[in-house]
C-alpha cells in the first residue's frame, strides 16, 4: 500500500469510528468519557498516519488544548503542534502537509502550529491563550524528548511568576465575563467562555499546574469535576443537535437537550428548567471557586500552611460580612474560608444580631449584594432564608427577563439601594417617590422579596405574599418595615400592569387603585419598586414609553390623595359598602353583581346606603334602550319626601329634561345626585317633595312619566311649561345673589362648575339647559338645598370627553348661567 493510500485508509477508519461513537449514545450522554474516547481514536489514527509518513528525527507531534486534555467534543477542532529542532524547516512543512491534507479533505477542522521549544517559550510569554493551550501539551508521535523540553519550558513560564500568572488568568476571566456574559444566570448562557463556564474550570486546572494542587481544596476539586462533566455533556449535546460548533445554549434548544439528557417534568419544574437550574448551579459554583482559587494564588495564600480560623458562631461571621459591605469591599478570601470552617446549624435561628447584620448588608448597595452572593455560594443564604431555595438558580421564561429569579431579586435590591441613596436623581418621578417613604428598610426588604413567589406553580403574586409573610416573621422583622415589605410583595405588579394595560382616563379605575394602595407612602413605595424591578429585569423593561404611562398613573392616584377623594378611611368605607352591596344582592348571579360593581361610579357607592343600592339594582341593572327612560319612586327618608330614581341612556340635555319634567309635574327638588356609569348610562337620584300637597300619589308619578315621554317625542316644550308653572307660584322670598365658579383643579376628569342661587321652581332645569346648550356633558351633579339657598355642583366634559380649559369657553359658561338665572321674567 502506498503512503497516501495508507494515510487515507486511517482517516476513513477514524471517521467511521467517530460517527459510530456519536450514534452509540443519545446526544445527551456524551460526557468526559466520550470525549476521552474520541481523543483516543484520534491518537490511534494520528500515530498510525505518522508511522506511515516516517518523520525524520528532531520532529515531534503533540496534541494541544482540548485535544491535549483528552476532551475532544463531537465537533471540536483537532489542535496539533509540531515541535521541531529547527534544523530542517522545509522538510517539517512537507510532513505537516502530508499529515494534514487527508484530514482536511475528510472534513476535519485541524488547527496546527510548527514551533521549536524556544519559540514555544517565547510565544507563551507573549500570549496567555498560547501559554494555556500548551500547558495541555501531550506527545503523540515522533521525538518525545523534544516535546518534553517544549512542555517544560512552557510550564516554566507559568511557574516563574505564579502570582502574575494568577492575575493574568483573573483578568482574562473578567474580560470573558464581559464579552460572553455570566453563565451563572443568563438564560442563554455560553457553555465555554462565559463566566462560570468550562474556561473557568480550565483556569483552575492551569493554576494548579503552575502553583501545585494545594491551591484547591478537595471539596472545590470535586465540585469542579462535577461541573466539567455536566458542561461537557450539555456542550456535546448542543453540537450533536445543531451539527454546528456553537457554544451558546439558545432557549429553543433547551427542551430537546433537557430531554436528551434525561431531565423530566417535575411538579413546579419543567424539564428544561431542571436543565437550566442544574446549569446555573454548576456555573455559579464554578465561577465562585475559580474566583477564590485565583484570588488565593494571586495573594500567595497556600492552603496547608494557612489553615482558616473558624468564627465563634454564625452571627460573628455575618457581622464580619456586614462590616466589609459597609466599607464597600468584597469579602476577603480568608474571611470566606473562615466562614466555610464555621459550623452552621440548619436552619439558622435568627437573633436580633442576625437581623441587624443582615439589614446592614441590604443597606450597603452593591457591596451588600457581594456579601449576599458570598453567603449564597457558601450555602448560608438558603439556611438563613429557607424560601430562597425555591427561587435559587430558577430560570424565567418570558421575553423580558434575562436573569434567574434569585439574581433578579438581588439586582432589584441593588437598584433599590441606589435609588435610596439618591444615585438616580435624573428620574424625578422616582427620586420624588423615594423622599416620600420613611421606612427605607421596608423598601429594601420589599425589593429583595418581591418575586419570592416565583416557584414554578400558581400565581406568583399571591404565593409570594404568603411566603414573604412567613419569611419576614422568621427573620424577626416587625412593625412598619414588615407591613410595607409584605404590601410591596403583594402589590408589586399593580402599577406596571395598570399603567400599560388599563384606561387611565377611567376615574373608577384610578379611585380603585388609590383605595387598594391606601396611602401616598405606599404609592411611592410601589413606584420605586416598579423602577427597581424593571431595571433588574433587563434593558427593555424600563423605557420612556413605560415610564410616561407609569408617571401618568402615579400622578392621577397621587392627586386623588391630595384632594382627599380617597384615603384609608374612605377606602375602608368603599370596601365595606361594596361588600354590603354584594351581601344584599347575594341572590343575584355573581357575574351580574360583579358587572354592576364595576360599572357604577365609586361616588355612587360612597353616597348611597347599601339597602338603597339594593333597591336601585333591579332598575339600573337591565340594559337600557337608547330612547328608554326608567323611573322608580319610593318614600324618602324624611316624611313627605320621596326618592325618585331615573335611569336612561346618557345624552346631552338629559339632566335638564328630567329636571324640567319634575318641575312641570309640580315637584320640588331638594337634593339630586346625577351619576354616569362607565358604559354611558345616566343614573339620577332625586329627593323631591310636592310643592303644595304633602302626599304624592301614583297618579303624579304617571304624570311625570307622561311629561318625560312627550318631551322625548318632541310633543312638549319644557321651557314654556316650566315658565307657566313658575307663574302659578309666588316668587322666592330670598334675594340671595347668584354665584358661579368654574374649577379645573378639582378633578382630573371633568371641569367642576359650582352654582349658588336662591331656590325657585325649575332652577336645576335652567342651569342644566344652559349646560346642554353649550354641548357639555354632565358626568356627575350634586344638588343640595340649604333653607332657601341651593348649591348645585356639576362635573362636566366637552363632546370629546375633555375638560373645558379654554378661558374664553370658561367665561362663556359663567356668563351664560348668570344671564339665565338673572332673567327678570323668570322670577
Amino acid at each position, binding site marked *: 500500500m502506498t503512503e497516501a493510500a495508507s494515510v487515507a485508509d486511517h482517516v476513513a477508519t477514524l471517521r467511521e469510528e467517530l460517527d459510530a461513537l456519536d450514534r452509540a449514545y443519545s446526544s445527551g450522554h456524551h460526557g468526559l468519557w466520550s470525549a476521552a474516547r474520541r481523543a483516543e481514536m484520534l491518537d490511534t489514527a494520528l500515530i498510525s498516519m505518522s508511522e506511515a509518513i516516517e518523520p525524520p528525527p528532531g520532529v515531534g507531534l503533540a496534541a494541544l488544548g482540548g485535544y491535549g486534555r483528552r476532551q475532544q467534543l463531537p465537533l471540536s477542532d483537532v489542535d496539533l503542534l509540531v515541535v521541531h529542532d529547527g534544523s530542517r524547516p522545509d522538510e517539517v512543512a512537507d510532513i505537516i502537509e502530508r499529515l494534514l491534507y487527508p484530514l482536511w479533505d475528510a472534513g476535519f477542522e485541524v488547527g496546527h502550529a510548527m514551533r521549536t521549544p524556544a519559540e514555544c517559550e517565547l510565544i507563551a510569554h507573549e500570549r496567555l491563550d498560547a501559554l494555556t493551550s500548551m500547558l495541555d501539551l501531550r506527545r503523540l508521535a515522533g521525538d518525545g524528548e523534544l516535546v518534553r523540553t517544549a512542555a517544560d519550558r512552557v510550564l516554566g513560564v507559568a511557574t516563574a511568576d505564579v502570582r502574575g500568572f494568577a492575575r493574568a488568568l483573573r483578568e482574562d476571566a473578567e474580560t470573558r465575563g464581559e464579552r460572553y456574559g455570566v453563565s451563572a444566570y443568563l438564560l442563554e448562557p455560553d457553555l465555554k467562555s462565559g463566566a462560570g463556564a468550562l474556561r473557568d474550570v480550565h483556569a483552575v486546572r492551569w493554576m494548579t499546574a503552575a502553583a501545585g494542587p494545594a491551591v484547591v481544596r478537595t471539596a472545590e476539586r470535586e465540585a469542579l469535576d462535577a461541573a466539567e462533566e455536566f458542561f461537557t455533556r450539555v456542550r456535546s449535546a448542543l453540537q450533536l443537535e445543531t451539527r454546528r460548533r456553537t457554544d451558546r445554549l439558545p432557549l429553543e434548544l433547551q427542551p430537546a437537550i433537557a430531554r436528551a439528557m434525561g431531565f423530566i417534568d417535575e411538579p413546579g419544574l419543567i424539564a428544561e428548567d431542571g436543565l437550566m437550574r442544574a446549569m446555573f448551579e454548576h456555573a455559579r459554583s464554578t465561577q465562585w471557586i475559580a474566583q477564590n482559587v485565583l484570588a488565593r494564588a494571586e495573594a500567595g495564600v497556600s492552603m496547608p500552611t494557612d489553615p482558616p480560623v473558624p468564627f465563634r458562631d454564625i452571627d460573628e461571621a455575618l457581622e464580619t460580612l456586614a462590616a466589609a459591605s459597609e466599607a464597600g469591599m468584597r469579602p476577603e478570601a480568608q474571611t470566606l474560608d473562615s466562614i466555610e470552617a464555621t459550623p452552621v446549624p440548619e436552619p439558622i435561628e435568627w437573633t436580633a444580631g442576625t437581623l441587624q447584620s443582615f439589614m446592614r448588608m441590604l443597606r450597603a448597595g452593591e457591596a451588600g449584594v457581594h456579601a449576599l452572593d458570598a453567603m449564597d455560594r457558601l450555602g448560608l443564604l438558603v439556611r438563613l432564608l429557607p424560601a430562597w431555595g425555591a427561587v435559587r438558580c430558577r430560570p424565567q421564561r418570558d421575553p423580558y427577563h434575562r436573569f434567574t429569579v434569585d439574581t433578579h431579586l438581588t439586582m432589584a435590591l441593588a437598584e433599590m439601594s441606589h435609588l435610596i441613596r439618591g444615585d438616580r436623581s435624573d428620574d*424625578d*418621578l422616582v427620586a*420624588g417617590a423615594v423622599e*416620600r417613604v420613611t421606612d427605607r428598610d421596608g423598601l429594601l426588604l420589599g425589593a429583595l422579596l418581591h418575586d419570592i413567589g416565583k416557584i414554578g406553580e400558581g400565581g406568583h403574586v399571591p404565593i409570594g405574599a404568603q411566603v414573604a409573610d412567613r419569611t419576614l416573621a422568621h427573620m424577626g422583622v416587625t412593625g412598619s418595615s414588615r407591613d410595607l415589605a409584605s404590601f410591596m410583595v403583594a402589590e408589586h405588579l399593580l402599577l406596571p400592569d395598570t399603567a*400599560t*394595560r*388599563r*384606561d*387611565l*382616563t377611567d376615574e373608577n379605575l384610578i379611585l380603585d387603585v388609590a383605595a387598594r394602595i391606601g396611602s401616598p407612602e405606599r404609592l411611592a413605595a410601589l413606584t420605586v419598586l416598579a423602577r427597581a424591578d424593571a431595571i433588574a429585569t433587563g434593558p427593555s423593561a424600563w*423605557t*420612556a*414609553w*413605560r415610564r*410616561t*404611562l407609569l*408617571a*401618568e398613573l*402615579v*400622578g392621577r392616584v*397621587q*392627586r386623588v390623595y391630595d384632594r382627599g377623594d380617597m384615603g384609608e378611611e374612605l377606602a375602608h368605607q368603599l370596601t365595606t359598602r361594596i361588600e354590603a352591596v354584594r351581601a344584599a344582592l347575594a341572590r343575584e348571579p355573581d357575574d351580574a353583581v360583579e358587572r354592576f360593581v364595576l360599572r357604577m361610579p365609586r361616588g355612587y357607592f360612597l353616597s348611597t346606603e347599601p339597602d338603597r343600592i339594593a333597591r336601585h339594582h333591579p332598575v339600573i341593572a337591565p340594559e337600557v334602550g337608547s330612547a328608554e327612560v326608567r323611573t322608580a319612586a319610593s318614600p324618602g327618608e324624611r316624611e313627605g319626601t320621596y326618592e325618585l330614581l331615573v335611569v336612561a341612556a346618557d345624552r346631552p340635555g338629559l339632566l335638564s329634561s328630567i329636571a324640567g319634567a319634575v318641575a312641570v309635574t309640580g315637584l320640588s327638588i331638594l337634593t339630586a345626585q346625577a351619576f354616569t356609569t362607565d358604559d354611558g348610562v345616566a343614573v339620577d337620584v332625586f329627593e323631591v317633595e310636592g310643592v303644595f300637597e304633602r302626599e304624592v300619589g301614583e297618579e303624579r308619578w304617571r304624570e311625570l312619566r307622561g311629561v318625560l315621554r312627550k318631551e322625548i317625542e318632541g310633543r312638549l316644550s319644557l321651557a314654556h311649561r316650566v315658565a307657566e308653572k313658575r307663574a302659578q307660584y309666588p316668587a322666592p322670598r330670598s334675594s340671595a345673589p347668584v354665584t358661579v365658579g368654574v374649577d379645573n383643579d378639582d378633578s382630573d376628569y371633568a371641569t367642576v362648575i359650582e352654582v349658588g342661587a336662591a331656590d325657585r321652581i325649575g332652577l336645576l332645569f335652567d342651569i342644566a339647559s344652559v349646560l346642554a346648550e353649550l354641548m357639555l356633558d354632565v358626568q356627575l351633579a350634586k344638588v343640595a338645598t340649604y333653607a332657601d339657598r341651593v348649591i348645585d355642583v356639576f362635573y362636566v366634559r366637552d363632546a*370629546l*370627553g*375633555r375638560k373645558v380649559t379654554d378661558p374664553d369657553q370658561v367665561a362663556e359658561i359663567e356668563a351664560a348661567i348668570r344671564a339665565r338665572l338673572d332673567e327678570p321674567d323668570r322670577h
Partner: protein
Amino acid sequence: MTAIVKPHRVDEVKEALRDLGVNGLTTTDVEGFGRQRGHTEVYRGAEYQVDFVPKVKLEVLVPDDEAQGVVDAIVKAARTGKIGDGKLWVTEAEQVIRIRTGEMGPDAV
C-alpha cells in the same frame, strides 16, 4: 395595514383579529402626537410637559378580500370615543415573502 392605538385597547384588537382568523400581528411601543397633542402632568407640585403620548403601533398583513373586515374590526375594538383613539391606514404590500419557506404572494400572508 398599520394602526396607532391606545395601549389599553391592544388586547381587544388582538381578540377581534383572532375572531376573524387573523393570526399574525406585530406590535411596537411608540410615542407621538396627533390632534391630542401632549399634555401637562403635575406630579408632587412639579409640572412637566408630556410632548409625546404613549401609543402602540400594530402592523398586520391580510389578503385584499379580507381587508375591509379587518379594518372594521380594528376600528371597532380600538374605539373609546374619546380623543386620542388613534389612526389606521391601509397600504398595498408590493411583495410578501415568508422567510422560512420562500413562499411568495398570498400564500405568504
